[in-house]
């Protein structure tokens, strides 16, 4: 079993006006085999947590710890974290012109595995994963994220999740901007990934609707840069009815 442990995490972000403190002591433990949903209003620090986990250079951990099976993630660069088993499905994947999707996927797979994938099985794996996500085959010759629609970007993130097969997946608002069909396709992808029972999922979302397709074991409500309430799936239902109004006002204004 693997464990991702977040202890008293304080994080600030670089802005034009200097660093701004966003996270004020987050505690969270994710074990493999579990799906955790992090929910909260806009500006509550959900995405900051995602970036801090992946090691984005604009986010500075000012105190606290972040460990994966006891290994200090804070000591690792983003690529080292990825090779240690972390994956972040991004909310806004960036365009990289001139780098084809197929070249990118193969480079990433080679980096994660430490050796180039066997050509034959790799081509088959990519095709299967793309079929599952209803991605057109010609997609692999396109430039990375360049001119992709919102839905294509999200499906491409999940395609990477399936092919790179990390231990822990952080999904940063993967559901935002998806229509109902795309939401189901993407959710199926996440469920395929976690179906073996040895993966941990940290699902960051603003809305409850993705939780109809991906069933969380735990729900954490994020407000003002810390966890305001925790519970099981029933907490999501409560949020569905009452929204975040009960929490806001206790310090959500960050």
């Amino acid at each position: 079993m693997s464990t991702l442990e977040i202890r008293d995490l304080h994080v600030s972000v670089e802005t034009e006006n200097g660093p701004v403190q966003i996270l004020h002591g987050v505690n969270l433990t994710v074990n493999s085999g579990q799906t955790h949903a992090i929910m909260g209003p806009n500006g509550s620090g959900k995405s900051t947590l995602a970036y801090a986990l992946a090691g984005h250079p604009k986010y500075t951990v000012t105190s606290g710890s972040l460990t994966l099976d006891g290994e200090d993630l804070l000591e690792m660069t983003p690529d080292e974290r990825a090779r240690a088993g972390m994956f972040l499905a991004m909310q806004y994947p960036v365009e990289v012109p001139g780098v084809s999707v197929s070249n990118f996927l193969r480079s990433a797979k080679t980096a994660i595995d430490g050796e180039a994938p066997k050509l034959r099985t790799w081509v088959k794996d990519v095709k299967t994963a793309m079929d599952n996500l209803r991605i057109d085959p010609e997609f692999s010759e396109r430039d990375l994220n360049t001119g992709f629609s919102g839905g294509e970007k999200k499906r491409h993130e999940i395609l990477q999740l399936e092919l790179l097969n990390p231990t822990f997946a952080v999904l940063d608002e993967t559901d935002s901007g998806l229509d109902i069909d795309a939401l189901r396709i993407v959710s199926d992808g996440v469920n395929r990934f976690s179906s073996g029972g040895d993966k941990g999922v940290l699902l960051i979302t603003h809305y409850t609707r993705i939780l109809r397709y991906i069933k969380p074991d735990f729900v954490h409500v994020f407000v003002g840069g810390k966890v305001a309430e925790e519970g099981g799936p029933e907490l999501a239902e409560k949020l569905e009815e009452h929204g975040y109004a009960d929490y806001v006002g206790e310090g959500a204004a960050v």
Partner: protein
Amino acid sequence: MTTIEHPELEGLGRYEYGWADPDTAGATAKRGLSEDVVREISALKNEPEWMLETRLKALRLFQKKPMPTWGADVSDIDFDNIKYFVRSTEQQATSWDELPADIKNTYDKLGIPEAEKQRLVAGVAAQYESEVVYHQIREDLEEQGVIFMDTDTGLREHPELFKEYFASVIPAGDNKFSALNTAVWSGGSFIYVPKGVHVEIPLQAYFRINTENMGQFERTLIIVDEDAYVHYVEGCTAPIYSSDSLHSAVVEIVVKKGARCRYTTIQNWSNNVYNLVTKRATAAEGATMEWVDGNIGSKVTMKYPAIWLMGEHAKGETLSLAFAGEDQHQDSGAKMVHMAPNTSSSIVSKSVARGGGRTSYRGLVQVMPRATGSASNVLCDALLVDTVSRSDTYPYVDIRNDDVAMGHEATVSKVSEEQLFYLTSRGIPEDEAMAMIVRGFIEPIARELPMEYALELNRLIELQMEGAVG
């Protein structure tokens, strides 16, 4: 020297072609330029009187013209210290084995004989110092009347073509360095493609400077007759020395009615070579001229391949790529002159600067009064890999009629933190991620290169990017 953000970068930009052969020929060569030197070169070649006269006239023009004060800094060139003519072997070879061992070894290391063996090229010329030392063309092309030889031999065997075309596209007095070249030229390629003949596989020339303080002044003349086609590819390398060498070529191309010519250069001189080259083509009615110009090496490059669109519906295209590392300045671009109605031109320029290097795009699009219905598009993108490098754009436009479609777009971008983060968050190490971004940036030009050069370019970028990030 520029201070570099990442100290681990110093000592980078490893140059793979920097070895030097023993330099017996160059050691005894004379330094400096005078009328005697010009006469001596001409006499050694047994040239006709008119060529000697052309040379001497050009020498006077060279001496009269001031050094250019625009573009890159060339004020350190010491013309008195340069060796203007170095003969490395007495006889031109037609098989690699006939070459002196040192020279053959050099071309082996560069992979040229192998390319010929694999028939990746239709003809090969190899210039070592001042002269072409090896030359070969496929028999079937020769039978079709294609001429591909070194320019000295061309002058001897086809004087009528030289009288008509030599210095017809680029007069000696065009600029200081075209005057210099015309005075002391030696070697280079002479190509004639007869009417309607399509040379499907490229003709290739390979230029190598071995002697320190050598001046290489090759002169290339290409005539593509009506409805013919040829692709010519040249590559250039030199040893690494502590003091500078000069490469100052002149390339003239005549593309006749309905013909097409593509000229590809991969310039990878070592970082002590001043590369000051004048290239110009004329395109007649319905003709197409394409320059693909890759500038990777050299200390300073000033080069602006030009196309004069002389006939109606002539097309000109320049794809240029510049890569500047520490202590390098690539001042390159293109020049399009629309002389006839309904002509079109396109310039695409991509440059990458790192480690304090500097790239400049300098281009001119000129549309004459009678060139109505013409169109031109200019696109130049610069990529800065760090904060100590520099890129400038100097686009000049001179349009003298109202019926012209002109597009211009220029961007300067930095490798973005977000792109690097995205790729590294997928496990890709930062230097490899950087190389991927740079390769992606130049991909629209790299895909136009012959395969072996495209691969070479990729490898080179990887080397340059290793450890390029902190």
